[in-house]
């Protein structure tokens, strides 16, 4: 599937290098053009011009995994404070365990 953006956590970064992925995490640090989110582990993300992140809010990032396992953000969506991270982690688990309905070739 060419335009699928599989949901991942920090542990999957290594396996998805140079691919577009979707990550739901909690904003832990804001440092100008960079930020840090917690998605089952800390991930450094490089922000685009129109990304406005809020500390401690959940954010869904769509971006490309770089060689150094940081993410170059293509789009971000603020998900607020009501996110159930356990459910989100379950979705990531299901995504990879049953990937036939989430990403990859048939």
């Amino acid at each position, binding site marked *: *599937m060419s*335009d*699928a*953006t*599989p*949901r991942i956590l920090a542990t999957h970064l290594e396996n998805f290098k140079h691919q577009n992925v*979707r990550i739901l995490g909690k904003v832990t640090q804001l440092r100008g053009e960079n930020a840090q989110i917690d998605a089952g582990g800390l991930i450094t993300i490089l922000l685009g011009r129109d990304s406005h992140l809020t500390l401690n809010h*959940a954010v869904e990032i769509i971006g490309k995994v770089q060689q150094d396992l940081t993410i170059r953000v293509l*789009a971000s*969506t603020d*998900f*607020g404070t*009501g*996110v*159930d991270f356990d*459910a*989100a982690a*379950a*979705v990531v688990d*299901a*995504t990879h365990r*049953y990937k*036939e*309905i*989430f*990403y990859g070739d*048939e």
Partner: protein
Amino acid sequence: MSYNNYDNQYSTTSYGAQGGAGGGGFIPGDGSQNSPGSANRGYSKDTLRPVTIKQLLEAQPMHQDGDFKIDGTEITQVTFVGQIRNISNQTTNITYKLDDGTGTIEVKQWVDSDASEAQVAARPKLVENDYARAWGKLRIYNSKRHVGAQIVRPITDINEISYHMLEATVVHLHFTRGPPESLNAGAGTGAATNGSYGQQQQMGYGGGIQDMGGNAGLPAMSASAKKVYNVLKTMPQSNEGLHQQAIAAQLNMDMGEVARAGDELLSAGVIYTTVDDVTWAVLEVD
């Protein structure tokens, strides 16, 4: 072919053509009663399936009339959640491009020319980058797939996205692997999950999960067929089985409905007739 205009809250105009030339045709109604396009099928087969967009893009076409199968079972209505990438307002419809992380698909919501201005104003406004949930039918037109949607609504609780992905996974597993074995014991947790599915899904799927007790091999069938089957399995009876009348009395169903359910079960090969055509027993496979 002529189709009546069904006047409901989400009314749409239908252009007559459907199936292969599905671009102009759209069948309104909630699927369980009013489906002029499926007059040859009977309403008991209509279902609502939670799916991922990837599943829609890879759904198997069945015959010429534009029906599809996902995970080996026919789909009628589908529901899914995605982020709006694009909104295109056209004269006859609003086209949303929805992306749920598994793929992108166009969702066409027909413009209701009869709706009053107040009705239109009351509808929740959707903007790009919002997440929305859509309900509708998968269609194909000029080899391109899209969804003809009756309802496209913004998501209010952000966890609905996670919920939908997990629900789609469960349903996918149900159709590819059969109901989970833990439900056969009729355990409390199993029953609790089943209750919510039963409420949210229409017959075809809800019936599938609720049926437990070693019925892993039972094909998807209507709710009344499931009820009749369960009575045949559990009600005390002689080795002649149960008469149609006894089943109807037990379930408080009318004879016609029991007869139809019986036909379904007979053709599925899970029951058989004993002393006469209207006395049935469950086919036990040891």
